[in-house]
């Protein structure tokens, strides 16, 4: 169809066409038609270009820098994998990667367990469920800087939890993890778990609510107790929710920059250094742009390795009609 909006062509047009102005009219009409047909793509393109540049082009740029010898200013020469070698021989980076592993494992395990636990409890027809849900979720509305600030002082031995417990009488109680290099990372875990549990809970709760009630009834008739029903039937049915939570929490974990900075400033020393803080300080503070870029690419590849399969499977299901 021609795409001209509305039948506004007056009867005289046909005469004009017949009179030989037809060619110009036809060209005009076909250009407008072309425009209208392509309009959707035209409207989409500015943002597409912006995202393409801002995401993919920039990634290539960073990659290029990671293969160069840039230090304080970007230099576009090619030194192969030199920066990556330098990266992996930097003790600080190794610490950061170890921290990331430890942090991610604990963060995922505890947040998922707590989130699932709370979701199951809330699914038991509890009064004031809405209020409780709001309480568990509000930390997600806060900036990680705010969270870090609050927990920094709560975990401070001379002001926070340790002092409170000491004042209550247990003089011998010690809780100074945040000052100890070996234990500081666990403090980051605590703050991160606090912030993100509500998120895991929300997803699990949505999953639980989506379960057809008659399945539970059928299992009850067959004699299964509630514990059995949860273990054998409900939790396996939550597999998609588990997947989503694991992927998204991992992503949050890799990105975590604000929290570490506010809570421990990557300290004490560099005990709680994470890839994200490493990249930032290498690039903007220590004039090691190439190494910083290499670390950024490492972060990117890790995220891609998790996210791309996940997105692929989600989009495929969409197309298959799930």
């Amino acid at each position, binding site marked *: 169809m021609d795409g001209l909006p509305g039948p506004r062509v007056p009867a005289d047009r046909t005469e004009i066409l017949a009179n030989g102005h037809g060619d110009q009219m036809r060209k005009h009409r076909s250009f407008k038609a072309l425009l209208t047909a392509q309009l959707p793509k035209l409207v989409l393109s500015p943002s597409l270009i912006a995202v393409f540049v801002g995401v993919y082009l920039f990634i290539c*740029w960073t990659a290029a820098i990671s293969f160069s010898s840039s230090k304080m200013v970007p230099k576009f020469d090619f030194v192969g994998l030199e920066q990556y070698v330098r990266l992996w021989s930097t003790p600080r980076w190794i610490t950061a990667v170890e921290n990331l592993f430890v942090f991610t494992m604990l963060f995922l395990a505890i947040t998922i367990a707590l989130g699932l636990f709370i979701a199951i409890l809330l699914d038991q027809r509890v009064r004031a469920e809405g209020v409780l849900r709001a309480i568990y979720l509000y930390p997600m509305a806060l900036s990680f800087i705010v969270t870090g600030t609050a927990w920094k002082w709560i975990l401070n031995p001379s002001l926070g939890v340790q002092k409170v417990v000491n004042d209550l009488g247990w003089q011998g109680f010690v809780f100074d993890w945040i000052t100890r290099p070996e234990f500081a990372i666990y403090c980051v875990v605590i703050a991160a778990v606090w912030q993100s549990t509500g998120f895991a809970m929300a997803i699990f709760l949505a999953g639980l609510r989506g379960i057809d009630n008659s399945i539970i009834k059928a299992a009850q008739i067959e004699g299964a107790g509630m514990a059995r029903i949860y273990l054998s039937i409900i939790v396996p049915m939550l597999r998609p929710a588990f997947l989503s939570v694991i992927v998204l929490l991992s992503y949050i974990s890799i990105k975590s920059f604000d929290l570490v900075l506010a809570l421990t400033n990557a300290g004490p020393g560099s005990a709680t250094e994470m890839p994200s803080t490493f990249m930032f300080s290498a690039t903007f503070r220590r004039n090691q742009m190439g190494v910083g870029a290499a670390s950024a690419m490492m972060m990117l590849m890790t995220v891609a390795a998790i996210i791309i399969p996940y997105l692929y499977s989600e989009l495929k299901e969409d197309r298959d009609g799930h």
Partner: protein
Amino acid sequence: MATDRQPGRRSHMIGRVFIYGSLLGLAAFYLMPLWVMVATSLKSLDEIYAGSFIGVPEKVTFEAWVKAWGTACIGTKCDGLKPYFVNSLVMVIPAVVLSSGIGAINGYVLTKWRFKGANVVFGLLLFGCFLPFQAVLLPMAQILGWLGLAGTIPGLVLVHTVYGIAFTTLFFRNYFVTIPDELTKAAQIDGAGFFRIFFSIMLPAALPIIVVSCIWQFTQIWNDFLFGVSFTAGDSSPVTVALNNIVNVTMGRKQYNVDMASAMIAAIPTLVVYVVAGRYFVRGLTAGAVKG
């Protein structure tokens, strides 16, 4: 008479006690930091050094808030958080409006004007939601410099808009998919064109998701720190950067109450949005995560 299963009833009661006990205990854990922030911010400095964080303030005083707002030192200037709060405001509002608006049109195009490769485009956009921003900091800093926007608020607005498009497009696309195609086809037969369909049919029907998008974007952009600290410095920084500066820079006696008051000031806008429109916030959270 209702069935009276005695042995079942006792274990039922124990179950309820366990459920409520756990929920309330956990609620205390989640409320505790908020309480600490509020309580500490309302205490005088002497009281803090004398006591601890958890207690109720003996004498409620707003001096920390006043200081945080107007006289706290950030960097070399001691004008409090106010200018940075305003910076955040000036940055957030255009960024939210722009990214949501563009996301709405994108979602519209992707669902109602299908073309070859629409799914590929969507997939590419989707990955943008999961980008670790460290991978683009360097080039973005360069580009902002070339555009003359380095260290400015409009520069931040541009950055947040570009990276917000991925999320907002996701929201609107998933929402518009549920609006039947017959609506747009009927409108086309009636003679409506591309833009008229968008403004007269899609947008009015999209009110809930517009709210979700705006709330989500507002929260993300207001709470952002990484872009703020990377692309601005000093006068044009957003409030999160200023907050970190106040907290992590120790000069003389640590003013914990001012720290906490500053944190509260930075947190209040998103908290208010959450309290008022929490339902939409949750929808934003679960929009990308739970399919179907």
